[in-house]
C-alpha cells in the first residue's frame, strides 16, 4: 500500500490528460454551435480539422459507404493542447509535457463556457482521463511496481511480450465507472519495457450530483487516489 499521496509529481509520466463533458443540445443546433465555437477559438487553436465517421454497409447486393463530419478537432499553436467536439462530447487534452491540473481545468472551463455561450447545452456526464507511460526494467517482478496486472497461472510460461488489459470497474461514490486500460508498447529503450497506465473516470450527472464543477473536482481527487494506489512507492519516487 502507498504510505503517502503526493499531490503533484514534478516528473509525472503523463502523456495525455483529458477532461470531458458529455452533453445534449436541442436537435439540429449542434452544427451551428460547433461552427461558432471553432471560429471563436481559431486564433489560439489554429489547426482545425473535421472529425469524420465512415460507415460501410455490407449486404448481398454489394456494399455502400459514406463519410459524415461529426465533429471538429482544434490544436493549439504549440501542438500541446487539443480541443475536440464530437456529437455528444466536448474534450480538452493536454499532451506531454503535462503542466498541472489547475491549468488544464481552467483551460477546459474557459473553452466550455465559450462553447456553452452559443446555445443551450446540458451536461450529462463528467470524465477525467489520464494516460501514463511508465518504464519498467526487464526481468524485475511486475507486481512489485504495478499492482493491477494479469496474473499468469503458475503452470504457464511467465515471460510475456504483448499485454492489453481493459477493465471496467464500478466507482461507488459518487457513482461512476473507472475504465482501466494497460498496454505494453513496442521496445523503446534497451533494458526497459514501456507500459501504458490509462485511467478513465466517468461520472453521469444525476439528480444527486448536479454540480458539474464539484463533480469534476471529485473526479480529480479519485484519479489521483487511483493512480497512487496503482504503483509502488519506489516507482513513484522516480517521478517526484
Amino acid at each position, binding site marked *: 500500500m502507498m504510505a503517502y499521496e503526493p499531490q503533484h509529481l514534478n516528473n509525472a509520466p503523463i502523456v495525455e490528460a483529458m477532461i470531458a463533458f458529455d452533453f445534449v443540445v436541442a436537435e439540429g443546433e449542434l452544427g451551428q454551435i460547433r461552427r461558432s465555437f471553432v471560429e471563436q477559438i481559431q486564433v489560439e487553436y489554429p489547426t482545425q480539422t473535421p472529425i469524420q465517421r465512415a460507415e460501410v454497409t455490407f449486404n448481398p447486393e454489394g456494399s455502400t459507404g459514406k463519410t459524415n463530419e461529426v465533429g471538429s478537432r482544434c490544436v493549439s499553436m504549440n501542438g500541446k493542447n487539443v480541443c475536440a467536439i464530437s456529437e455528444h462530447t466536448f474534450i480538452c487534452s493536454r499532451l506531454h509535457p503535462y503542466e498541472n491540473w489547475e491549468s488544464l481545468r481552467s483551460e477546459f472551463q474557459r473553452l466550455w463556457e465559450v462553447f456553452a455561450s452559443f446555445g443551450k447545452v446540458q451536461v450529462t456526464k463528467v470524465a477525467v482521463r489520464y*494516460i501514463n507511460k511508465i518504464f519498467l526494467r526487464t526481468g524485475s517482478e*511486475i507486481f512489485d511496481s504495478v499492482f493491477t496486472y494479469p496474473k499468469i497461472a503458475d503452470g504457464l510460461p511467465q*515471460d510475456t511480450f504483448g499485454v*492489453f488489459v481493459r477493465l471496467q470497474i464500478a466507482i461507488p461514490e459518487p457513482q461512476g465507472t473507472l475504465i482501466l486500460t494497460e498496454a505494453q508498447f513496442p*521496445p523503446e529503450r534497451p533494458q526497459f*519495457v514501456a507500459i501504458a497506465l490509462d485511467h478513465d473516470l466517468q461520472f453521469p450527472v444525476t439528480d444527486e450530483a448536479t454540480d458539474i464543477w464539484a463533480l469534476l473536482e471529485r473526479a480529480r481527487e479519485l484519479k489521483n487516489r487511483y493512480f497512487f494506489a496503482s504503483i509502488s512507492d519506489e516507482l513513484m519516487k522516480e517521478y517526484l
Partner: protein
Amino acid sequence: MIPVAPPVQSYVQNDVATIVYRIDTTQSDFWMQHTDVSIFWTRELQFRQLTESTRKAKAFEEGWDGYDAPAPNDASVARTLEVLSRVRDSKLSPYSVLPSADGGVGISFRGNANKRAVLELLNDGTSSYILFGKGYPIESSEFNSNTDLPRILQRLEEYL
C-alpha cells in the same frame, strides 16, 4: 515477471505473419475504441502501423514496381525505424511508409493546402527530403540522418 522485449524477428518472418497479423488485428480493435478521443492513442496506433509497414518493406523483392526498383535493404529499414522514432517525438504525422523506387524506404507526409513532404532513406546510406505542392516551389536536398534530422524535421513542420 516484467514483460520481456518481443522477439522482433517474429514480426518479419513470413511463416508466422498470419499469427502476428491476427494478434495485431485483435489489439487494433481494442485500440481503435480509444482513437476517437485520445490523441495519444491515435498517435500510438498510427506509429505502430507505420513501424509494421517499415518492417514489412523488407519483404518487397527487386522489381517490385514492375520495373527494376531495388528491394529495401536491412540498413535502410533500420534507419527508417530510427527516423520514425524521432518523428514520433515531433509534431509531424506521417501519412505512409513505402519502399522507394530508388532503393530504400520513403516516409510521406501530407499537410495543409495539399502540401506534401517525403523523407527517403536509401539503401546506399544517403538520405534526402523533398517538399512539394501545387503552387509551391519544390525544395529538395540530401541530408545526414545522424546529424541533420532535427533541422529537417523542423523544416517539415514549418512547411506542412
